[in-house]
Structure formats: C-alpha cells, structure tokens
C-alpha cells in the first residue's frame, strides 16, 4: 500500500488524463453493451487501473531530499535508489555476517575470560600454596632447631635442650670418675697401712721367736741349776745372773711386743675409720649419683617424648608440604591446559572470522564496481568503499551463511568433573 500511495502521489498530476484514456474504450462500447456487462466491467475497470498504476507505471523519479549530498547528481540519486533492493540484500548479508562474527567473538571472549579466570585463580592458588610451603618449612626448621637449643625465656640452670641433657650426663659421668679416682687413692692409702700392719706382724713374729728362745734357755737353765745345785755357790751366782739377764731381755721383748700391739691397734683403728669414711663417702656419692641419674633419666625421657612429638610434627608438616606441592602441580597443569585450549581455539576461530569478512569485502567491492558512477575506479565516490588493506589473503572459500564457528576443543574443562579420572583397561 505504501508503494501505491507513493505512485498515486507521484502521478497525481497525470491521474485525470490517464483515467480518461482508460475510460475511452469503455465509454465507446457502453451504449451497446448489456447492463450486466457494464456492471461487471465497472469494478474490473478499477482493478485494471490499480494494476496499471502499481505494476506497469515506472517508479517516479524521486526528488532531491534535504539529507542528500549536494555533490551527488540527481541521476546518481535515482540510480542509488533503484539499487535499494540490492543494498538491502547486501546489508542483510552484512547483518548476518556481523551477527555470526559477533557470536564468534563472544565465544572467543567467553573462552578468553574463562582462561584468564582460571589462570588468575591458578596463580593465586599457587601463590597461596607456596606461602604455605614456606611457612611449614620454617616451622619444621624451628622444631628441629628447638631440639638442639635452649628455648628462649626459659632460662635457669635446668637443662632444656637435648644438648643440655647430653652435657649434664657428661658432667655427671666426669664427677663419678673423679669420685672413683679419689676412692682409688683412698684405697691405695689403706693398702699402705695394711703393709705397715704386715711389717708390725713380722716384728711381733721376731719378738715371739726371741721369747720362745728365752723360754727355751730358761728351761735349760732350770734343768742345769737342778743338776748343779749342789756343786758350788759360784756357779749358782752365774746362773742367777744369766737368768736375770734373760729376764731383762724377756721384759724388753714383752715391752716391744706391747708397743707393736699398740701400733697395730692404732693402725687398725685408723684403717677402720678410713674404711668407714670411705664407705660413707662412696655411699653418699652413689646415692647422689643415683638421684642425679634418675632425675636426668626422667628428664631425658620427657625430652625424648618432646623430640618424638617434634619429629612427628616435622613428619606431618612434610606430608602437608608434599600435598601442597601436589596441589601446585595440579594448578600448573590447569594453567597449561587452559593455555592449550586457548591456542587451539584461537587459530580456527579467527581464520573463520577473517574469511567471512573478506568474503563480504569481495562482495561489496564487486557490487561497488557494478554501480555506473564508479566507472571502474572503485570507491571514487566513497559510497561503498570498504577498507581492508591489512586483511590477509583469504586462505579458503568463505563459509556459507549459517556455518557454525569451529567447535571449541572438547576438552574436559579445567576444574571440571573429576569422575573417572583414572581408568585401567
């Protein structure tokens, strides 16, 4: 209806003569035609007029519009308007290609965004894991160092570290050694005293021998005095002198023996005291050593438990570090997988896009050449000029309309379902 109205408006000045011309044949035959033929022909007349105007009459030349460029002639404007249908088709194809390109670009953008998101999260995760690994390693070192060093703020004489306990044990053993040396010296003194007692015993043996000799001589003198009792007094006097001398000798011997016995008693008492003192000393030293060893053993056992706990903590931290490293490896794989996915996506998608645009470029250029005003010099008026100087040469024919973009690699997306990760056939 818009076209009909446009033509009626355009031919408004010629409508009456045209109507007259159409009516002349009808008017010429009307007086002889029957009434029913006239009643049929009147509406047919209007139908014919409608068909004539709509399909037979050429499009009226358009007048210049306010938006038309002054540099373009009326003829060009007319030709351009005649080419509106081709323009519409071209623009429709442009719209289709643009829509498809937009979809492809959106897909690329979606994948790039996805890759960037994964890469970012992977980097963050890797960073966190490295921090965790560093923290746990430092904790391990601290635990290991604590085993060998005194804890700060826990001063005092009590040993805190394994080294302190080892040093305390060493000092205790040294003290025990010194005490044993002293005991040995004491025992050497006792041995010297025993030697003196042995010497005194020898002297007593000598004195006893002398006394036995004296007793023997006295017995002989008694027998001799009995035999010579009646001989003379002189001999008796001699005998008496000898008995007195023997008596004196026996007296001296008995004094010597008494003195020796006194010495022996004194030495025995002294030795006994020394032995008692040594025994007491050894008992005290043993008790002290036993107490110290018991205390040290208890503390060492306690420290050993701490060492066990520390070693267990170190082992647990080692396991956690291994898990962190495993996680880092997984995150690095995510990085690599997404990078590969992007690389596989990039080439076909962009090639397809470039091919589509090149096809449109060729079509537009061809269409532009067909325009009469172009006169073989493409784009002289610049109306349909398309600049694609930097585009590469098309490597393959343009994809037909509606061809879908190359499918993205059918990889399992990063962080996707982990089901059936490993399958042994």
């Amino acid at each position, binding site marked *: 209806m818009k076209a009909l109205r446009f033509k009626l408006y355009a031919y408004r000045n010629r409508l009456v003569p045209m109507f007259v011309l159409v009516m002349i044949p009808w008017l010429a035959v009307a007086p002889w035609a029957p009434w029913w033929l006239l009643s049929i022909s009147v509406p047919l007349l209007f139908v014919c007029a409608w068909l004539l105007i709509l399909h037979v009459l050429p499009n009226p030349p358009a007048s210049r519009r306010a938006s038309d460029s002054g540099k373009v002639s009326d003829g060009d404007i007319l030709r351009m308007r005649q080419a509106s249908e081709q323009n519409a088709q071209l623009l429709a194809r442009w719209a289709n290609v643009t829509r498809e390109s937009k979809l492809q670009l959106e897909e690329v953008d979606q994948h790039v965004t996805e890759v960037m998101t994964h890469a970012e999260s992977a980097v963050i995760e890797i960073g966190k894991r490295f921090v965790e690994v560093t923290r746990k390693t430092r904790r391990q070192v601290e635990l290991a160092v604590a085993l060998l060093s005194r804890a700060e703020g826990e001063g005092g004489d009590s040993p805190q570290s394994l080294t302190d306990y080892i040093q305390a044990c060493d000092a205790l053993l040294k003290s025990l050694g010194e005490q044993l040396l002293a005991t040995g010296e004491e025992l050497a003194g006792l041995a010297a005293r025993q030697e003196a007692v042995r010497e005194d015993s020898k002297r007593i043996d000598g004195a006893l021998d002398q006394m036995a000799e004296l007793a023997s001589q006295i017995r002989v003198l008694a027998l001799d005095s009995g035999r010579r009792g009646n001989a003379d007094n002189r001999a008796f006097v001699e005998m008496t002198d000898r008995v007195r001398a023997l008596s004196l000798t026996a007296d001296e011997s008995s004094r010597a023996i008494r003195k020796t016995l006194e010495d022996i008693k004194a030495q025995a008492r002294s030795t006994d005291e020394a032995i008692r003192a040594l025994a007491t000393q050894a008992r005290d030293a043993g008790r002290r050593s036993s107490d110290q060893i018991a205390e040290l053993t208890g503390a060492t056992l306690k420290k050993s438990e701490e060492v066990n706990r520390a070693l267990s903590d170190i082992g647990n931290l080692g396991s956690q570090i291994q898990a962190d490293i*495993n996680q880092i490896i997984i995150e690095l*794989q*995510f990085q*690599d997988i997404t990078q*590969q996915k992007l690389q596989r996506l990039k080439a076909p998608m962009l090639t397809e896009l470039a091919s589509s645009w090149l096809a449109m470029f060729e079509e537009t250029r061809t269409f532009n050449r067909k325009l009469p005003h172009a006169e073989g010099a493409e784009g002289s008026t610049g109306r349909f000029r398309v600049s694609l100087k930097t585009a590469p040469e098309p490597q393959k024919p343009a994809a037909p309309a509606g061809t879908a973009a190359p499918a993205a690699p059918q990889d399992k997306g990063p962080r996707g379902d982990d089901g059936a990760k490993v399958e042994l056939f």
Partner: protein
Amino acid sequence: MASILVVDDSTTMRQMVAFTLTSAGHDVTEAPDGNQALAKAKGKKFDLVITDVNMPGMNGIDLVQSLRALPDCKFIPILVLTTEAGAELKQKGRSAGATGWIVKPFNPEVLLDTLKKVLD
C-alpha cells in the same frame, strides 16, 4: 625404579610428569611428539610409556598402535594422559592397545599409585 617414556607436546606438562616420576625414583625420558617418541622407543627399552593424545605429527592413539607393533613394546604398559574424557576416544585408545586412561590434570599421588599398579 622403572624406565619411563613421557610423551607430551606441552613442555610444562611433560616437566610436571617428569618431576613427579623422578621424585619417586624413576628414570624418565621425554619426547615432544609421537614421532620422536617412536624413535626413542626403537633405541631403548622402556618399562612404561605415558602419552598425551592431542599432539602434532603423530597423535597419542597412533603412537600406541605403533608402539604395540614394536617387539620391545608389545607387552609394556602404556598409559594415556590427556584432557580428553570422551568414551569414544577411550574406546579407541583401548582398541589401540592402551593399558589405562588418566584424565588431566592428574594428581601426582594418583599417578604414582596407578604406575605402581600397572608396573606390578
């Protein structure tokens, strides 16, 4: 300790696998594609092969088939380590002679456990 051939076109992935295996005491040889892997398999006897699927030149499935044709590789375990998880491709790998299928990204512990299973 096993002698293992790792085939992957991604250097990062290859090094990740190599790092995991060498940490466990295995001897690792790397190859960036199927052709080089095949050449290395002809020159040395391996206890196990781990290969990707999507590689330039010869892909992983073809590599498995080619390896199975070698006398030294006829009975060794061959694991496919790939991002592909489709049942059809798995079936192709199985038909080609693959021993197992591991989907990337792999967990190092799981990979080592799988290796232990197939090597035992």
